[in-house]
């Protein structure tokens, strides 16, 4: 998709759930067929609209999880307890059901396989979703830019895409993946559970001298903390792009 191509008016489309995939006990991926889908870039999102019988609507944003160039749309939704929209998407929606979406939108928080500079991804919780699209785009495009991912999760069981990330990390030219556990780490893990701090950042991410583009995504509090740490470490603020997913709901 061209960066600033003049586009037609954005309207709602009805997609159909082709498959669902459980990622963790509280998160799942929806695979949608969306007639006329124009394709997307890694990092873009869609708006999802639910309409109640009385006409009341709720709109939320969800990142596109799959690599571009596919004829389908994949969203991974983490259930937020007491949420209006996410419990419906993670529990009620079934194969064959319709779902209204519009997009792709948001051309700022994107990574393009042609970008030559090193890439630093930092994810908190479900903030991995748009970064996973970048990891997947990197893999399918045979991207040369070296990529690192620092992924903060509460405990091993709440990490999304764990098996796929391990496979990709093991493959030639794949991303280097480091986990940060905030509540409980796997047995024998060298670091006491806790939030990402300056030391971990220095150990697991590109130094500013490498000139990486940094993409930080997760709950608002997480994104702000990590962006501040990156700036304090010497990264240029203009090289740091952020995507805030909303209230923290506990640190991932």
């Amino acid at each position, binding site marked *: 998709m*061209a960066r600033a191509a003049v*586009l037609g008016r954005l309207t709602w489309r009805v997609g159909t759930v082709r498959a669902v995939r459980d990622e963790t006990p509280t998160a799942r991926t929806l695979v949608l067929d969306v007639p006329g889908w124009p394709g997307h870039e890694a990092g873009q*999102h869609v708006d999802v609209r639910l309409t109640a019988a009385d006409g009341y609507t709720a709109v939320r944003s969800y990142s596109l999880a799959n690599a571009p160039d596919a004829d389908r749309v994949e969203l991974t939704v983490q259930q937020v307890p007491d949420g209006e929209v996410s419990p419906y998407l993670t529990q009620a929606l079934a194969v064959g059901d319709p779902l209204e979406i519009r*997009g792709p*939108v948001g051309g700022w928080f994107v990574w393009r396989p042609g970008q030559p500079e090193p890439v630093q991804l930092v994810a908190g919780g479900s903030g991995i979703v748009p970064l996973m699209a970048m990891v997947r785009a990197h893999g399918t495009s045979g991207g040369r830019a070296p990529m690192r991912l620092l992924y903060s999760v509460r405990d091993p069981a709440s990490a999304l895409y764990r098996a796929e990330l391990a496979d990709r990390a093991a493959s030639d030219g794949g991303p280097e993946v480091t986990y940060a556990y905030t509540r409980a780490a796997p047995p024998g893990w060298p670091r006491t559970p806790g939030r990402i701090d300056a030391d971990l950042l220095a150990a697991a991410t590109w130094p500013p001298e490498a000139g990486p583009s940094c993409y930080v995504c997760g709950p608002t*509090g997480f994104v702000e903390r990590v962006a501040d740490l990156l700036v304090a470490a010497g990264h240029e603020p203009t090289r740091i792009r952020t995507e*805030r997913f909303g209230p*923290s709901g506990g640190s991932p």
Partner: protein
Amino acid sequence: MNTETPAHLDGNAAAGALREVFAVDLTTAAGRCENCGRTVVLAEARLYTRAPGLVGRCPGCEAVLFRVVRGPDRTWLDLRGLTCIEVSLPDA
């Protein structure tokens, strides 16, 4: 952390609401803040979603840059805090 400030999103999250009105992706456009003169990529505005509609504020001075409110069959757009917007439009 500053508890006075309610949690905000990024202007990027207003991309869908703005793309209903504009034929280009306005979130990648650069706007000038009328209040402090700073140039802001609209995706990097601080987006508050608890007001009616969406309110984008300047990351430098917190002045309101834009507001978008969607109602039945219409959108109301207020660009009060932007003196100009520069959109990349390669000649087709």
